[in-house]
């Protein structure tokens, strides 16, 4: 395990190496998301509970984020043998979810939820006119505040200050944090699901490995500690990448394990800007032939774009943290997976032996 100080010390050397990459290598691979072509997807989540002998509750995340430039939810419908079901909106973050309640009965609970969304690529906003709407005071406060797993003081603030030097404009600070994550963190395949996002533990232990919920949460925490409003966006990959990146798209229509969270940072004049350093590290680890160095063309191409842009083969559920499941005492750090409570105990959505569900994605001709 490398110490935190060693990681910090290594940043400058990595940055210098990145600047010396040959331009010829960058031209060999194309990764260039651009808005202009909307795509419509239907996402079906089917949950089958195993135990009919206990009262049960199910919560299914629904696409909640509406951003006219890149994602528009177009409605949800469901069928179920539940005693009752309703759509609930979290008052703090606006996260929508479907809650279904199953009484003790003869038949195990089943619910199938279909959500339809319209999405398109996001292109980098830099260089154009700076006319984005300003953030309200309440939104700014919400997306600057710490969460249970994302403190913004102590070691997080200390690290953010070292990365940004406490100076530079908003874009420079946001980019510096992005580069630091790319150069100092790594994707750890052994992490279950998408990780937990325990940012303080990552920094204090010096173990900067993880998956999207770890690496992009670290980005968000460091940005907030730098005074930049930022948010995790929890979602799902719904289609393959049109740019041929196997690691940046869904491998099939079965997207049960294709959850992916991204990040956004709010920059004055540009609005919410797409940021996904975790996917850069995913390309490094997994994109064939795998274990790519940071200067591999396939990595460089993705890295150049994933600060400011991302591909519209992904849907956003919500930006919520520390969400108490409505009607339950259980709280989740984020809502990206279906959740179920049977007999008062929350099931593990990452354990297919005890909690069976499938999520499928179908693109609908527009």
């Amino acid at each position, binding site marked *: *395990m490398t*110490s935190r100080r060693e990681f910090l010390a290594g940043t400058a050397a990595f940055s210098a190496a990145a600047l010396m990459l040959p331009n010829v290598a960058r031209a060999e691979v194309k990764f260039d998301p651009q808005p202009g072509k909307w795509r419509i997807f239907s996402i079906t989540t089917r949950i089958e509970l195993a135990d009919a002998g206990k009262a049960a509750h199910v919560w299914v995340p629904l696409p909640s984020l509406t951003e006219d430039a890149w994602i528009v939810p177009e409605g949800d419908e469901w069928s179920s043998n539940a005693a009752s079901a309703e759509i609930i909106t979290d008052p703090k973050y606006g996260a929508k979810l479907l809650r279904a309640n199953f009484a003790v009965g003869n038949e195990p609970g089943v619910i199938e939820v279909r959500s339809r969304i319209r999405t398109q690529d996001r292109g980098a906003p830099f260089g154009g006119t700076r006319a984005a709407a300003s953030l309200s005071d309440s939104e700014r406060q919400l997306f600057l505040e710490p969460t*249970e797993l994302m*403190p913004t*003081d*102590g*070691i*997080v603030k*200390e690290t953010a200050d070292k990365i940004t030097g406490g100076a530079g404009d908003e874009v420079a600070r946001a980019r510096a944090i992005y580069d630091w994550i790319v150069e100092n963190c790594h994707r*750890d395949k*052994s*992490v*279950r699901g998408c*990780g*937990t996002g*325990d940012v*303080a*533990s990552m*920094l*204090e*232990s*010096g*173990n900067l*490995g993880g998956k999207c919920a770890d690496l992009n949460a670290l980005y968000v925490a460091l940005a907030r500690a730098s005074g930049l409003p930022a948010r995790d966006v929890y979602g799902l990959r719904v289609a393959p990448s049109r740019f041929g990146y196997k690691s940046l798209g869904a491998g099939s229509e079965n997207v049960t394990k294709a959850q992916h969270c991204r990040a956004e940072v709010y920059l004055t004049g540009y609005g919410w800007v797409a940021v996904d350093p975790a996917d850069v590290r995913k390309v490094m680890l997994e994109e064939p032939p795998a274990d790519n160095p940071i200067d591999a063309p396939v990595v460089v191409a993705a890295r150049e774009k994933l600060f400011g842009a991302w591909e519209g083969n992904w849907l956003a559920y919500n930006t919520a943290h520390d969400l108490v499941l409505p009607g339950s005492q*259980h*709280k989740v*750090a984020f809502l990206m997976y279906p959740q179920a409570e049977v007999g008062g*105990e*929350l*099931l*593990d959505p*990452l*354990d297919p032996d*005890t909690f069976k569900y499938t999520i499928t994605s179908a693109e609908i001709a527009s």
Partner: protein
Amino acid sequence: MVSHLAPEVRGSRLQGKLFRVVLAAVVVSVALGSRVLASPQFALEPWQGGPKPAWTLDVLDGEKLTLEGYLGKPVIVHFFATWCEPCVEELGSLERLTNRKYSGLAILAIDVGEIDARVRNFLRKHPVNFPVLLDRDRAVTKTWQVTALPTSFVLACGLTPVLHVRGDIAWDSAEVATTLDQAIQTPAEGQPACNQQREESE
């Protein structure tokens, strides 16, 4: 959040031979320019803060357990999570520590912020013989100001922390064994050993 670079400094009420033995080790160690226990990266450090608040937590698939019930025994309170990679190996070393039959030493592992099902599945693969408690809402983790996992505290018989480590260590290593031997098995002058205190109090 409390940074490890800014350790807490508070008034303490550390008592008894256990603390004096540990303190002596600390003094010698500091004089030699090293920490209490040699480890590649992390090591037990003398606890500079004050007492920690009492708690009552659910044992996984069991009854509630109260820290105060261990008054009179030295206790290791170990905070971990199933997703924490270094925690897995460290739990194994704690389990091996139980086999060394330290007189009266109790080990209490506290899982931080995870659902019962996940902890249960984890322990099927990594079974331990000491109680595993569930801090589902992180309330104890917060009041004990634990900001990174794993984190462990060694409590003297009065349940006051005397050592702590933020990070993983090999609890069954020779260095740790030496310190625990001294801390746990050497009775204070004029004072009964911890386990004797415990027996008398019962």
